[in-house]
């Protein structure tokens, strides 16, 4: 079992519904966000190329954030999901420094927080909140180890990229391009 996401940059319109859905679902404190939209504009007017991406923790395979955590609060659970145990976190910020995607933040209560792939929802067979609300259905969540899953088929048949692969973290969110 290896959970991952595929996000179709050709379908994403940058509406930020995923951002709001996550904030509501996970009671993200006001002013914070676990996912966000990036717009990349390339070229010179009028010859422009646009890419829109919904980004979040990549639930990396090679996790610097887990490695540098001094207490073991940052850890990996079944399916490769990277989580933080709040009552073990001392708020030292080491994991924040080690994430190339700046996917983590300190919760106002002091512990570090981030995307959980909505593990409380997937336990019940639901998709993560962001995936389930996307009006263009540009996001796919599933098991990358299962060759017949929709996400595996997409990742294997479409051209994909990951973010900053040169940072060596082996991200598990694939952008279909």
């Amino acid at each position, binding site marked *: 079992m290896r959970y991952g996401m595929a996000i179709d940059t050709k379908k994403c319109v940058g509406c930020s519904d995923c951002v709001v859905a996550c904030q509501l679902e996970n009671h993200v404190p006001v002013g914070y966000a676990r996912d966000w939209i990036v*717009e990349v504009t390339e070229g010179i007017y009028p010859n422009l190329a646009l890419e829109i991406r919904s980004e979040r923790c990549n639930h990396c395979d090679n996790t610097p954030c887990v*490695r540098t955590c001094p207490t073991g609060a940052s850890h990996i659970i079944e399916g490769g999901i990277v989580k933080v145990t709040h009552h073990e976190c001392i708020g030292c*910020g*080491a994991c924040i420094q080690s994430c*190339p995607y700046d996917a983590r933040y*300190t919760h106002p209560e002091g512990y570090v927080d981030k995307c959980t792939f909505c593990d409380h929802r997937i336990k019940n067979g639901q998709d993560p909140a962001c995936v389930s609300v996307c009006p263009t259905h540009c996001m796919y969540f599933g098991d990358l180890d299962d060759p017949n899953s929709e996400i595996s088929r997409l990742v294997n048949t479409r051209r994909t990229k990951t973010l900053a692969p040169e*940072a060596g973290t082996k991200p598990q969110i694939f952008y279909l391009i």
Partner: protein
Amino acid sequence: MKEEIITSGRLNPLIDPVLNVWHWEIPAYLFLGGLSAGLLFFASLYTIMNKEKEYSTAVKIAPIIAPIAIALGLIALMLDLKHPLYSWQLYTTIRLESPMSWGAWTLMAVMPLSVAWVAIYLDQVFPKVDRRPNIILKVLFMVIRLKDEEDENGINWEYKYKWMRDLKNWIFKNRVTMAWILMPLAIILGVYTGILLSAFNARPLWNTSLLGPLFLVSGISTAAATIMWLTESKEERVLFSRIDLVMIIVELFFIVHLFMGFLASSEVQIEAAGLFLGGHFTAPFWGLVVVMGLIVPGILEALELKGFHVPVAVPAALILIGGAIFRIIMVEAGQITRWLY
């Protein structure tokens, strides 16, 4: 042209628009850790070399700073923690992959050893106490008691309980063994202050293995400057300003290598080096750290060794200030460097 922007308005405090999770606390912790590491290194080195008499400041007096600096450093670290009530969790596991973890353990090991080190020499350094009890003395009375003999310099004292005196004598007898334990720990502590940063691949400016040796040498240099400042013996002062001079040269050499390494590396590291080569940190780094904190004190020390009269406080203070600014700049600048947008 390429423009990458976050359009959903991510403004996580301390993360956006640029990462700024660590403030003054971490550089303070690194500076105090490096200074103590250097002081304990010299104390144990000259004990092992059986030079306690010649270099008594290094062995007996300067180490008094170490436990105080470590305690202040640990306080700074605690202030940096955003979930401090849970900080005891640092000491429920050892995670060798996490420098923060083994560094915290190293400090935990060095702290009692440095206190013991100070305690065995305290009656030699301060053989007499003032006749009139003052606040400090009142606190000290928890562990010391006065002996009867008294002269115009004050009253002799000794440790209050017999087990303390026995322990002190036992450690004093075994101080060479203790020095052998303390020396590697001091080196580990000194290297750790650099490795803490270089373990973060996500911050290109820190991600170089040179930072460990560079911070170690810088820590040793600040310690040598401190000893040079404190000592009253000419011989000791000359030795430590020579040592400091060598450390300054090694540091300059490492700094040149640091930038050569960056410029020959990937784009993100070239950009990181750019912060110091024309970018935001150019003036403070080259002006305050390299010229004011290394080259000027180096020249002053060389002049003094040549026989010119230079008040020793000047180069020593410059080295200490330069070392502190160096750590502040590295921590600040490192957090700005990144892989994406």
